[in-house]
Structure formats: C-alpha cells, structure tokens
C-alpha cells in the first residue's frame, strides 16, 4: 500500500510530465512568438542594417557607414520634421486626452442609458474609419474659399481662415482632424477606467463633503491615473507616427510647416529611392518613441497610483 502510494506520487510529478508540460507551453506560444519575430524583430533589425547602406532598390546596396546618419543631422528638412512631430504630439495628445476625459466624466453622470450608449458609439465611430478617407473629406471642409467650415464661420462674421495654406493654421487643422478621429480610443479607456472605480469610493467622498470638481480632482483623477498612463503612452506612440492627416490635408506644407517624420521617411524611401536615408530616420524615430515611452513609465512611478 505505501509502495503503491509512493509510486503514484512520483508518476504525477515526474520528469516526463514536466517535460511534456513545457513542450505543450512552447507549442502554444510558438505562433505568437514566431509572429513577433518575423513581423517585428526581423524588420527592425533589417531597417537598422539598411541604414548603413545606400540603396535605391534598383542597384545593389552599397556600404555607406554612418553617412546616412551624418547627412540626416545636417538635413534641415529632417530636423524640422522632428520639431513638427514633437509639437504635434504635445498638442494632439494633450487635446485628445483632455477631450476624452471631459466627455468620459460627462457620460459617467446622470444620463438615460440609450443616450449614453448612442453618444459612446458616435464618439468611437471615427476611429474605425480610414484616416486617409477622412482627411480627403476634411480637405474639402477646410478649404479656405469653398469649405463648409469657413462658410459656417462666415455666418457668424468671422473672416475666412486659411486652414490649409497658412503655416500656423495648417498645423491647427491637422491637429483638429487627428484629434477628432483618435480621441474615441482614449474615451473608451477612460470609460473603462471610470467603471472600474468602486462605487464606495464615491460614497465615502460624498460623506466627507467632496463633490463636483473637488471630487474629480482628489478622488477620480488619482484613481484614473493608471488609465491616464495607458492613454498617454498609446497616444504619444501614435502621434509620433502620424502620417495620413498631414499627407492628405496639407502634403506637409505650407513649406515644411506640417511635415512629419514618417512623411520624410516615406518621401525619402518611396519617392526619392533613398532607402538607406529613410531607414536612418526610421531608426532615430524608433529611438525617440522608446525614449518617450520610457520617460512616461519613469514619471508614472511618481504620479500613477494603484488601489
């Protein structure tokens, strides 16, 4: 009897079973890991390598050392595109999160359920549309002479705004179109975050006399801070890679006023056949995104609180 029991115990926890479990785990993980390797890691490595060559896709690549990086540092278009992209990021992500937060709090208040659902769907809908097709429509709406936006402003006595052809207004127009499309994602995050706050916390705050804006500032925001972190990280990553809106709306203009880093990458690679230069800019953008993400996670240690 004791012998039988000992044998059974060894069988259950035996080496063969452990090996089988590990093999099974590896089999289940393989599709995802292989997918990440093939579609993410290999292209990144390829892009880094390509940044040390000159290649026009027609002839064989030629070794160029760090020439692509040196040229990039002295290219005023590249430098302007990074400045534009950072400015765009600050404006777009800031406005996006602010709008999403205000609307999420409004939707969290007293509303008929049908209205709440309808508004959530309406705000989310732009996100599922093609950014390029939205920008084509917006290009008509924002036209200085014939656009509906300027027609509407004219009805209230405002002079026509050169939305797409003035250095400052072009950036404003691109930010507005981008935020209009993207903020639905942040809104979803905040709605989820608000739903995650226990009702007792609000009741306890109310008992202590904290209501309205004071409640939002001292109770809701700290409890939403993990959600804010996610919204901020995702928003920054997306904004640094913006392309469709400035490409379709303003073609990077006027001048270089709305030219972004990804536009420069696209133009260098596919319009000018300078794949090495484009890869070098891509590597730099990759580094910038990594740095911005790391910075946010570091700041999160101070500002993000968990229940």
């Amino acid at each position: 009897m004791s012998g039988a029991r000992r044998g059974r115990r060894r069988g259950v926890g035996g080496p063969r079973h452990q090996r089988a479990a590990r093999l099974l785990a590896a089999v289940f993980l393989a599709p995802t890991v292989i997918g990440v390797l093939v579609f993410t890691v290999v292209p990144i490595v390829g892009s880094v390598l390509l940044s040390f060559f000159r290649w026009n896709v027609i002839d064989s690549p030629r070794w160029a050392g760090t020439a692509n990086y040196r040229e990039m540092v002295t290219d005023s278009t590249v430098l302007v595109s990074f400045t534009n992209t950072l400015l765009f990021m600050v404006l777009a992500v800031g406005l996006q999160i602010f709008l999403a937060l205000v609307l999420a709090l409004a939707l969290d208040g007293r509303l008929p359920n049908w209205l709440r659902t309808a508004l959530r769907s309406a705000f989310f809908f732009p996100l599922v549309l093609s950014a390029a097709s939205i920008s084509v429509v917006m290009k008509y709406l924002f036209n200085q002479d014939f656009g509906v936006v300027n027609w509407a402003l004219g009805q209230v006595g405002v002079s026509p705004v050169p939305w797409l052809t003035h250095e400052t207004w072009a950036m404003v127009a691109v930010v507005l179109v981008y935020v209009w499309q993207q903020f639905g994602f942040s809104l979803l995050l905040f709605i989820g975050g608000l739903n995650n706050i226990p009702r007792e916390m609000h009741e306890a705050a109310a008992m202590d006399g904290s209501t309205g804006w004071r409640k939002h500032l001292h109770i809701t925001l700290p409890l939403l801070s993990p959600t804010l972190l996610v919204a901020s990280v995702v928003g920054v990553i997306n904004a640094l890679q913006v392309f469709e809106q400035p490409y379709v709306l303003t073609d990077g203009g006027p001048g270089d006023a709305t030219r972004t880093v990804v536009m420069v990458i696209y133009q260098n690679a596919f319009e000018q056949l300078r794949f090495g230069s484009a890869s070098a800019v891509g590597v730099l953008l990759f580094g910038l995104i990594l740095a911005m993400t790391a910075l946010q996670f570091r700041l999160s240690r101070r500002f993000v609180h968990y229940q």
Partner: protein
Amino acid sequence: MSSTGRRDRIGPSRRALLRYGAYGATAAGVAASWDRLTGADIPGRGGDALTVATLGASIDPAAQRVLREGFERLHPEIKVRLIPVQATDWPDFFAKILTQIAAGTAPDVVYVATEGVQLFAENLGVALDDRVRRDADELREYFADVHPALVESMMYEGSLYQLPVEFNAADMYLNTSVLGGAGLELPAADWTRDEFTALLRELRSAGGSGLTPYYWTNRLWGGVVPWLFVNDTNILSESKAPGGRWLWDEFYPADLAAGRGGGYRWTTPQATSAPVAEVYDYLTELIQEGLCSRPEGGGGNNLVGVFSTGRVGVTPAGGFWAGGLHEAGMDPAGYDVRFFPRWRSQRHQFGGAGYALLRTSNKPDEAWEFIKYSVRTEVLEALFQANQTTPARRSMVDAARYRETGPAGWRTFYDTLDAFPDTGPIPAPPRVTEVELALTKHTSTALSSPGSVRSALRAMQNDLEAAMERDL
C-alpha cells in the same frame, strides 16, 4: 456472448463510414476548387503574361477590356495582364510602381507621364531606338500625326523611351457665366498678363466675396510653372541633349525637326534668378489683392466642382478638364478655353504620357508589340471617349470629339503646340521627385507675403542644388 457478437460484425462501422465519407468529400471539394484556391483562375496570373501597369484612376474597366482584348485578338499568343494602380497623382503612382519593383514583382510595361520619363529612362527603361528604326514603315503614319514637341519630351540623352499617347498643356479655362455676370467678353488668344490681371480685377469687383477670380493648385504641372514659361524662364536651366537625328531625319520634315535634339536636359538650378523672382512677385501681388488664394497642394480634385458652379472665374487646366466639367453637369457653353496669357513669351508647358518598357522585363519583344498597339488610332479612340485627356494624335482633336462636352475653343488644345513650337515639358530631370518637392514646398512659403519671396527662393535654390548633386 456479447464480445463474440461485436467481433462478428461485418463491414465498417457507421462512424468509420462517416469519417471516410467526409475525407472523400473534402478531397473532391479541394480538387474542384483548386484553381480558385491557388489563384490560377485570375486572368493572366502567373509568369507567362505580359504585365502592364496603368494609372487606375485614368482608365476605366471598359477601356481596360479594349486595351487587353483588342491586343490579344491581334496577338493571340501573348496574354496581357493589366494592373490598374490607384494613385492620387503621378508621383504617387511612381512610388507604387517602385515599390512593386522593390518587391520583385515589376511589370513589363508601365504607363509613364512626363514626371517620370527621365527617372525611368535613367534607371529602369529600355531605349526604343532600334525597335523604332526596324518598324519605321509601320510607325511613319503615327509620327506624322504627332507633334515633335511631344516626342522630344519622351527622349533622354539621344534615345526615345516612350511613344506619346496623350498630353495636356496648361491653357486657361474661363467660366463664361462668371465673365458674363461681370459684363466681360472672352479675351483674345494673344491676351497679355496685364490683360489677365485686369480681367481678374473686374471679376473681383463684380463677383463679391463668394467668387475666387483665379484659382490654381501648387504642383509641378500647372502651378507656378506656366508663369515661369511665359516669363521665358524656369527653375532649372534648360538645354538639349545631343543626338536624336536618327529620329528627326527619318520621321519629320526639316522645318518641324529644326531645333529638335536628343531630349531635354535640366541642369543648373536658377530659382534665385530675376525672372523667377519676378513671377513670384507677380503671384504674391495677386494674392495680396485677393484675386486668388494661396494655393493648396495636391491634385486639385475639388476644383471641378467649384469651377462648374461658378465660384471660380479662371483656372489653368488642360484638355483633361473637358470631360470632368461635362460630368459635373456643366453646359458646354458655360466655359471656354484660351491660351495662357503672354508675358515675355507665350511658350506653354505640357505633360504627356506613354508606355515605357522596363529593363527587368523578360518579354521585351511582346512589350514592344503592346507599345505599338497602344498608339493606334482605334485604340486611342476607344480609350479617350470621355475627353478626360488630350490625344497625342492631332487627327483625333476634332469638332466631333468636343461637340457634346465643349469647349467651343477646343482647337486651343492642339494649337498650343502648333502656334508655339517651343512649347515644352515641365522640368522633370531624373531627380524629379526632389525637384517637385523643392518647388511646391518653397512656392507655398514664398507666397505667404511679399517679403517672403526672396528668402523662400534662396531655400528653393539650396534644395534644388542638393537634389541635382545627389547620386540616386
């Protein structure tokens, strides 16, 4: 007893029968749909078809059938696969073709506009010289029907790379309803820049805030460039490559061939020269007076709608606009066309297009048959029924073509070439994408205020110099 009974069963079990039946059905289904699963039922798919890439937006499905089926009727042994590539404009189209080349799926033949002629010729195209000479008798009628300026625009360093199929020069479209509302007549063919300016001022006075007298799009074709041409200048200095006599002596009489060479060379940037600055000063003045707006970039797709509804008085466009305005519901009498106004000269700019044979092709002879086919009169008639371009063949630009769509002044389209033989292509060297970017980028900043012109042109000059010096 029960065990014995089970062993005694005869034939497969019901479960086994169902399983094998499913296997059989699956195998039959796979076999029946093998062509669909492997894509073999796609016409021309696979390595043996001649692949032809065209700008998707400019050729409709019916026209594609004409192009493919007519050719296959003539050459039953050659299968054709047409690849319509959707693109917003020519640079976008070339970017997509180059992407296909990078991916190793290069087409055999590509429809290439002036914007890409030299880019393709220098790096990707096959010179057609030997084939043209060999088939000279077959092509003589074609060359007699095509203005030599169009042919010259498709040459590079002495060789011919494409046969012109279509072209569009930047003439001026005038909205006759808007002019009538201001009490104005159509201008004369030899109108001057100052008469043009006076016309805009009259339109401005009569039209009010809802009217834009002059509207144009910032791009290589039809933006600033027509004004540079009539001011006898360009952003890059022009010259002719040597050679080309093999073509001019064979196909054109001496008077038409005089001055023709082996294709254009655009070399030294001269954006800071006085005539160029003069053009920008003039356009800035128009903007300051409210006679036009700072131009947007892009293809000008929204322009048809606002012109046809009378919110624009005048705009540069080519023959391609006749069909667009017609489809927008404009009455043929509602608009007309004139030459571009004269300044120091009345030299016009144009862009053309034709099929280029790529070096990567392993079917050059079949491709050449297609290129010859593409310029036949009956093929062009079928392709250009909608008047969305101007045929390269003079004989096709006739009253019947424009009876339904207008304009009344349709003769202007081809007369632009005959009346001004020095009319030439937009500046499109092999570095054309960087040239176009430098032009459009700094044009938009130059026109922001009168004080911006000189600094923007200096920046344009720097960009052009960097572009022309760079190895591809």
